[in-house]
């Protein structure tokens, strides 16, 4: 069943890893004899307004997209899980405080929050990863907290406590392994969201800066002026974003199905 999402994700990962070998042209090379040309044998996805090959740009653009997506996911998952697990396991005033912070962050629309943070930090890969990670972390923290609450109430945690295990040992040995499945599911969903965020921020000009291609910035700027006459400039990077996000989201769904004991044996 999960073959399609796995294949899709694998295809994008391979695309990003082997990008330099898969490009037909230098993604920045301008060909003045082929400005804004539709897809053809020479340029399978057409060329942009400066005669740059769209296929080569989409392929190269997969690197910042997936790279920022994966890194931001890592930031979000590490930060979110740590907060969620600690908050759920310890409870009490710390839990109350952390969850109110999470509430505040969750009430703000993610994109607005990201724009505000980027305005302060400035555009660039590092700030992009940090900002997307920070925006996605609260949601993960909330889910991880509830997963931890369930685990914390289990008999084996009580037993571990009864034999005198310290909190740190219980968290590392008993809580974490039992919420790993949730983390994996959240991670694959987060990467899809992170890719989408990267595209949105690059579209708004705060992400990857031209001339370096990214799916987001290929959709914005001059491509909009050309949209009606040369739709391929925007359609193909748009398709790439959609497929990548779809792949990671389906993967997340599949992982959830696999890890959910209630669904086991139903397929």
């Amino acid at each position: 069943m999960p073959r399609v999402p796995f294949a899709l994700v694998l295809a994008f990962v391979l695309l990003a890893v082997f990008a330099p070998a898969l490009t037909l042209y230098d993604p920045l090379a301008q060909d003045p004899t082929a400005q804004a040309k539709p897809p053809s044998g020479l340029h399978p996805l057409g060329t942009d307004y400066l005669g740059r090959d769209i296929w080569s740009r989409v392929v190269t653009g997969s690197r910042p997209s997936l790279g920022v997506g994966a890194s931001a996911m890592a930031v979000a998952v590490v930060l979110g899980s740590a907060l969620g697990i600690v908050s759920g396991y310890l409870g009490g005033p710390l839990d109350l405080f952390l969850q109110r912070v999470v509430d505040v962050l969750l009430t703000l629309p993610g994109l607005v929050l990201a724009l505000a943070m980027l305005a302060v930090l400035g555009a660039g890969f590092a700030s992009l990863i940090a900002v997307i990670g920070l925006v996605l972390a609260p949601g993960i923290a909330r889910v991880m907290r509830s997963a931890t609450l369930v685990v914390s109430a289990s008999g084996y945690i009580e037993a571990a406590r009864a034999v005198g295990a310290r909190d740190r040992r219980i968290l590392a040995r008993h809580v974490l392994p039992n919420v790993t499945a949730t983390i994996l599911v959240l991670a694959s969903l987060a990467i899809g969201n992170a890719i989408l965020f990267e595209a949105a921020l690059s579209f708004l000009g705060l992400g990857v800066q031209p001339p370096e291609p990214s799916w987001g910035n290929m959709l914005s700027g001059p491509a909009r002026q050309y949209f009606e006459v040369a739709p391929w400039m925007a359609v193909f990077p748009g398709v790439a974003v959609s497929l990548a996000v779809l792949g990671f989201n389906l993967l997340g769904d599949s992982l959830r199905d696999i890890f959910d004991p209630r669904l086991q044996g139903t397929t």
Partner: protein
Amino acid sequence: MTGRDMGMASRTRALSIAFALALAVTACGPAQQAQPVGTAPAATSAPTAAPTAQPQVKRGGTATIAFSVDPVHFDPHKGTTAQNFVSIVYDGLTQFKTGPDVPPGTHILEPALAEKWDVSPDGKTYTFALRKGVKFHDVPPISGREMTADDVVFSVERMLAKDAENIKRDLFAVIDKAEAVDKYTVKLTLSQPFAPLLANLATVFAAIVPKSEVDFKKVAVGTGPFVLKDFQRQSKYTYAKSPSYWKNGADGKPLPYLDGFVQVIIPDEGARTSALRAGQLDFTDLLVDNLAQQLLKSNDQLRSEKFPGNFSVMTRLNVKEKPLDDVRVRQAISLAIDRQVIANALGGGTGIVNGPIPTALTDWAAPVSELPNFKQDAAKAKQLLADAGYKDGLKLTAVLLRSPQNRQIMLEAMQGQLKAVGIDLQLQFVESADLSKRRVDRNYQLMGDNLTPSAEPDTYAYIEYHSKSAGNVGNYSDAALDTLLERSRSAADPAQRKQVFRDIQTKLAELQFIITTGDPYYHSVFHPYVKGFRFSFVNQRIPVKYVWLDK
């Protein structure tokens, strides 16, 4: 870089040089005339109302047009990018002839609020006889009183105010004194003879406003053909016909023909074409060639007129600091770029290369093919960089706005072309307030920009380059150039003045303070019932007073 990439790059360069040569051949003088300037291609030719056909004009109706930018204020003396927007509210002492029988690129000066004028033999005193009975709009606090010499003197003094916002002050700075001789006579005394005065007075920056405290952020009060009735910022500006306009139409009654005029703000070009197609707009101007072609293909009802742009999308170089203080570096930048490719990218396949004075000013522009440093020559560029001590390349940073997108197109193209000679150009997008501040503070290295369209070459020359001009924001200073620029202003004989401008353009092409690239071809597109519309860059005023609707 791999071997394949290198091969690719050199092949690209070879092709681009061949391409540039081919275009250079077609872009020189005679071929330029073959390109119908301002006249529509036959297939989409508009039945433009010839003067003889005009007696059947129909009066009434409201026409709607779309604009991309919102005017910040309605003060004509403080230039903004949206100045042409509200200019139909104002008149100047003089104006350029506009209307359906004037092709773009033709600039005929005619009287406006001044009925006639005398110039003293030494060229330093201008006496204007004002038109009698011209009324300001019936808008508080003015309420329709007559325009007199006092208003003209007030306006001239306002234009000359040493105010940082008066960025077009140097168009008139030679005026020493303005006096009201009597109610209908104004005398302007100049510090030196100044050939472009009458043309500069025809710009919207010399509009006559009433002598009164007017808050131009809230109201616009002039003597023009339309009265600003109502507006919602970023959305819609509604005008009504002025009941007492001083100029008569073809039917012998006062202009304008329309009862009303509406400008809506639609920043997105795609949305503008959709609105036109849907009939929400009656006409649009400045539609880039490729978009217009597509629109005309999809709708055989629409009519269009094509004309070359004269904004000349360009990159300002700030020559205060290294490395741009070195003329060799600037020449290398100019030689490294392929302007035709940039112009084509701006226009979506077609475009026109422009030198310091855009080709659209047919009387003044020097053919680009005759200017030095305008033909791409990467080898020479590299040599110049090596001579200047940048054998290993150099890094430059350009600031630009995200919209209009033409700056990004130009600078991205330049980025690729400059890389081939070892210049690493970084783009830094900034907000418009930041850009304005950087311009005033001269705090930038390179800046994507465009020139202010005008009928008068002075705007493109003295204003931008003279070492003492307020419009010179790149620290440009060259004694020989200053002398030429001063001569261009004092030369009274048109032939002599033309020659001075040729020399100025050659000098500018050598100095390369501002790297001009080019413009798209633009279209005015309108529904077939719109008559009498002819786009004009001159005056920066949209000639809507001659528009009528045949429906």
